[in-house]
């Protein structure tokens, strides 16, 4: 069934929010280049609570590709990391949400997504770039950043979701 124009507009809105956050985050200085809060995950989370998996993946792909184009990191190692992290965390978050129903709030889903994100990136780094397990020294730091990032992003997503729910008509519940 073709998507309605309203559906497509909402999808583009989520994509552009993701792109904006992706670019915004590249301006935030971090002590180490690979540490990130993962702000763009806010858009993935909200999309998860609005659309089905296919649409969420489309939104993630648009965000990663367009965001990397804007930041200038396209086809660099950073792009591959953002790609792998974004897609894998979207897949796992979607599966978790479907399997557990209302057990976790957006906050819990966000935390899991953040951890999957860094673990996937770690795999890519070890498999493709460094080929040495010495990178594992960075693992505790990455996990802490996932903990902090997942909490911050989860909190923002919970609040935004409440606001969007209150606006009601904005989020089309079913297509």
């Amino acid at each position, binding site marked *: 069934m073709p998507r309605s124009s309203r559906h497509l507009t909402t999808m583009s809105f989520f994509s552009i929010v993701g792109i904006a956050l992706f670019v915004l985050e590249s301006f935030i200085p971090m002590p180490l280049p690979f540490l990130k809060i993962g702000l763009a995950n806010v858009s993935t989370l909200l999309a998860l609570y609005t659309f089905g998996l296919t649409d969420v993946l489309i939104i993630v792909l648009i965000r990663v590709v367009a965001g990397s184009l804007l930041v200038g990191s396209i086809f660099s190692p950073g792009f591959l990391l953002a790609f792998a992290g974004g897609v894998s965390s979207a897949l796992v978050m979607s599966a978790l949400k479907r399997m*557990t129903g*209302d*057990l*976790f*709030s957006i*906050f*819990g889903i966000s*935390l*899991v997504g953040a*951890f999957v994100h860094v673990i996937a990136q770690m795999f890519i780094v*070890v498999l493709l770039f460094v080929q040495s*397990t*010495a990178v*594992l*020294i960075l*693992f*505790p730091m990455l*996990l*802490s950043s*996932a*903990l902090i990032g*997942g*909490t911050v992003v989860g*909190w923002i997503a*919970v609040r935004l979701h*409440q606001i969007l729910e209150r606006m009601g008509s904005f989020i089309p519940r079913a297509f």
Partner: protein
Amino acid sequence: MFRTLTVADKVLSLTLLGVTIAVFWGISSLATPGSFAIVMIGDQLAYKLPLDANKVVTAQGRIGDVTIEVRGGKVGVTRADCPNHVCVRTGWRSRGGEVIVCVPNHVWVKILSNDKPEIKGVTG
């Protein structure tokens, strides 16, 4: 905020916090012990000291002497002719990759390990 969190959320948060702390602890305890220390003066290798034999050596640095001591499997700078004694305050070190530097004297001690990192087994 806390009202919106479900019980599962809280359990999950605490679990992930625990996992992070456990990994922190696990990785640091897996760090390879050093097997010998090298003493460098500028880019010249001055001494190679096995960590399993107690020994005291003196390196002549740019502005004075630096005394390096191996004792009980650890290496440390015990005395140095330099204004700040940062190297002495670095204390005793024993893990592979650790470095003690006396900047004014251009003397530095690096701990090396012979064997591959044991961490190799963890990735799975």
